[in-house]
């Protein structure tokens, strides 16, 4: 039996709660760092300096952010339709296959042809891989949570098969395709800046960051301004009302999963077209799963997702720098710290809500 809580003011919901959660996550992480005999302040300083303190670090941070934006948007779109897509990894892998196939075929063409085609291919392949579980849910009642996670394994097996037996040039030890021709390489941000006479330090950050921001705008329009997004939200909030309104929850489930899969697939733009310039095994590195935390933290809103993705970008790049400078803080420790942030920001999202709600409503009452 829980009392209905007075709604929180928007600023508290969007800014204060995430801030409290992140701060708490850092405090607890600090205790962990302290326990292994390192200074938490120094560790925090290294992380922040490493992630935001110099050009290359910022580049790496934004490069990670790009992945997390795509992964977070993918989760968010499905979430608005009441679906929990945890197959971002698999959709990204298949998106990578699509991008790589287009890039290998069209790489000798000018970039203006090859790149849009490869980007489109990544989205289409990811969309297909997301739509299948959507179809299974809509028509066969197989829960997407189960099917999407199983499709991750299928995607992974398919990717390895393709790399080992189809794409790999002979004599190469690593399961990897050949390096794309120039036309299919998405320029690095440093290169792009040079066209305008600007100098930027070298980093994996590439033009896909811009694509990610455009995707945010697209998702915002889709969800909050389009008729399709309206239908998604009705289905997600109240499937009975959807049927009443003449919206088919089944059809929307398939559409939402396809768009979600397309966004996850576009993660490959960053990794495959932007950084590696070839298809490799394991390029998704679990970013698809982090996308769930990003979407949760970002309240499934594109604006929130950008901020949450940036936070995780800082954690990833800062964590790498910490591993370089503090050998005692192993990468497993860094995973623990990242996990704490996910725990506090995602899973324990509602921990402070009741107290805060009480506090704020009291203050408002007094001041009124």
């Amino acid at each position, binding site marked *: *039996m829980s009392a209905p809580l*007075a709604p929180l003011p928007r600023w508290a919901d969007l800014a204060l709660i995430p801030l409290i959660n992140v701060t708490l996550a850092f405090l607890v992480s600090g205790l962990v760092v302290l326990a292994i005999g390192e200074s938490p302040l120094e560790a925090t300083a290294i992380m922040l300096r490493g992630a935001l303190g110099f050009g290359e670090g910022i580049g790496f941070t934004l490069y990670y952010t790009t992945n997390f934006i795509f992964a977070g948007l993918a989760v968010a779109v499905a979430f608005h339709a009441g679906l929990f897509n945890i197959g971002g990894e698999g959709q990204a892998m298949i998106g990578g296959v699509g991008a790589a196939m287009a890039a290998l075929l069209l790489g000798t063409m000018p970039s203006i042809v090859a790149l849009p085609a490869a980007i489109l291919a990544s989205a289409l392949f990811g969309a297909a891989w997301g739509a299948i579980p959507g179809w299974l849910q809509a028509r066969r009642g197989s829960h997407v949570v189960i099917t999407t996670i199983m499709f991750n394994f299928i995607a992974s097996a398919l990717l390895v098969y393709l790399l080992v037996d189809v794409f790999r040039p002979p004599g190469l030890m690593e399961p990897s395709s050949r390096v794309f021709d120039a036309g299919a390489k998405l320029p690095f941000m440093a290169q792009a800046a040079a066209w305008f006479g600007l100098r930027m330090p070298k980093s994996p950050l590439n033009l896909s960051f811009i694509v990610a921001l455009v995707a945010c705008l697209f998702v915002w329009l889709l969800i909050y301004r389009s*008729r*399709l997004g309206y239908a998604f939200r*009705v289905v997600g*909030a109240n499937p009975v009302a959807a049927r009443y309104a003449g919206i088919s929850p089944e059809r929307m489930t398939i559409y939402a999963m396809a768009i979600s899969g397309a966004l996850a697939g576009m993660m490959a733009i960053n990794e495959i077209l932007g950084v590696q310039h070839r298809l490799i095994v394991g390029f998704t590195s679990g970013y698809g799963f982090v996308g769930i935390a990003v979407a949760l933290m970002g309240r499934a809103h594109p604006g929130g997702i950008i901020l949450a993705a940036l936070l995780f970008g800082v954690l990833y790049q800062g964590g790498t720098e910490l591993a370089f400078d503090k050998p005692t803080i192993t990468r497993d420790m860094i995973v623990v710290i990242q996990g704490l942030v996910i725990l506090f920001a995602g899973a324990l999202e509602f921990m402070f809500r009741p107290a805060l709600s009480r506090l704020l409503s009291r203050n*408002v009452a007094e001041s009124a």
Partner: protein
Amino acid sequence: MSEKAIQLLSIDKRFGAVHANRAIDLDVKKGTIHGIIGENGAGKSTLMSILYGFYEADSGEIRINGERKRIRSSADAIAAGIGMVHQHFMLVEPMSVVENVMLGAEGGTLTMRGMEKARAEIRRLGADYGLLVDPDAIVGELSVGLQQRVEIIKALFRGAEILILDEPTGVLTPAEAEQLFEVLAELRRQGRTILLITHKLKEIMAITDEVSVMRRGEMVAHRKTAETNPRELAALMVGREIAHPQKGASQAPGAPLLEVENLAVKDARGVMRVSDVSFMVRAGEIVGIAGVSGNGQSELIEAISGMIRRNGGTVTLCGQPVPAEADAAETRNLGLAHVPEDRLRMGLVTSFSAYESAILGHQDRPQFSKGPLIDRDAAIADTEDKMKRFDVRPPDPLLKTANFSGGNQQKIVLAREIETGPDVLIVAQPTRGVDVGAIAFIHRQILDLKAKGKAILLVSVELDEIFALTDRVLVMCGGRVVGERITDETDQNEIGLLMAGMEAAPAIGTPAEMRP
């Protein structure tokens, strides 16, 4: 002078800008049934939540049996001898009655001994107050009326001397409500105090000793029930006299606009919910469907409107046959409007802004579209306009749907469905959970539509409403139409008998498969 069981002294509670309770004073005498009546949003629920420890009052004092108490949680309330029966039951459906009753009062790690004791206590309470229920029955398999009994037993088991019931008859059949009132009378006879929250004047008049009226967060009147009448109470609730619309003389019926023939509907488990239903509604006519909730009315209108598939029969709208696979969007295009029976479950999306709820079902109309996007400005302007004409308060299209009161939510739905100019309107339970002032308004809208020559199918469990509005009435029982009458040539007694399938109402609740 009997002593006071509850005394509230200038209770005050604010939620942000909303002043939910303003300096409330209330005296409830021991061993009485005390009614609290008021429109939705008048502050009744907030006041009871304060009494039961869900909220703490910003200021003011609570005295129980003359003693000052601080009630900060439901545990405090239980300790003070207060029990509450919520509108929506707080029961664990897969557990047995005895397990539910013991929940939170297990008395030790091992439940065996406590269980035996509880079983005996449930039998004793049953015998003493007429609250008979099998302690080992699974709660989910009991009828709604019996589940409510379990809630009452739960409160008594915890030693409640004061029982708060929040809209207890909202979910009951008339027969079940009758039985509940007998139980309440017995409880009163044995010295317990009962606070009854309701917006049904009939119930207040039937069972309470005293009544307090709330309006807009304030306690506006206290009356002895014997010294007042429904008219006065209604006026006190809304702050003015209410003019009930007259349905006027029946007009000559026009062409049939809605024709249903041999309609059959099975549910997901293959159980026949509607069988062989045929009727027609003509232009300028209101046809009512009466029946105890759960006798196929919901399935009937959902099948007509295309929300669910029919398993046989035909539906014709304005002379055009409705294909069997038509969805709600298609029937809407054929000229049907539908005010659903449960606005929160299907008529609105509570998490949406009002303007988004106000285009539900109409989101694809060119009027609200800008290519693939929704023409937000047009939708907002349209909603604002409808809100003004239907007196929705507050008239703010951007406010979250959940933040409107029930009556205002219903007006949003009604405005949306009526304003599209449909030829046929299906309207189900239009005044459920709606306050007195809004009821009159809603009835007037429906009658206006009839005057414009539209065909209206009204489904209601409130016989008063059926009689106030319809020209003809069909009675449904067990998924069939068991009778048809001209409204002016029958009475509530006859219809009531038909609703019960020509038999006396079932003794205890309705069988599980007939509940909604």
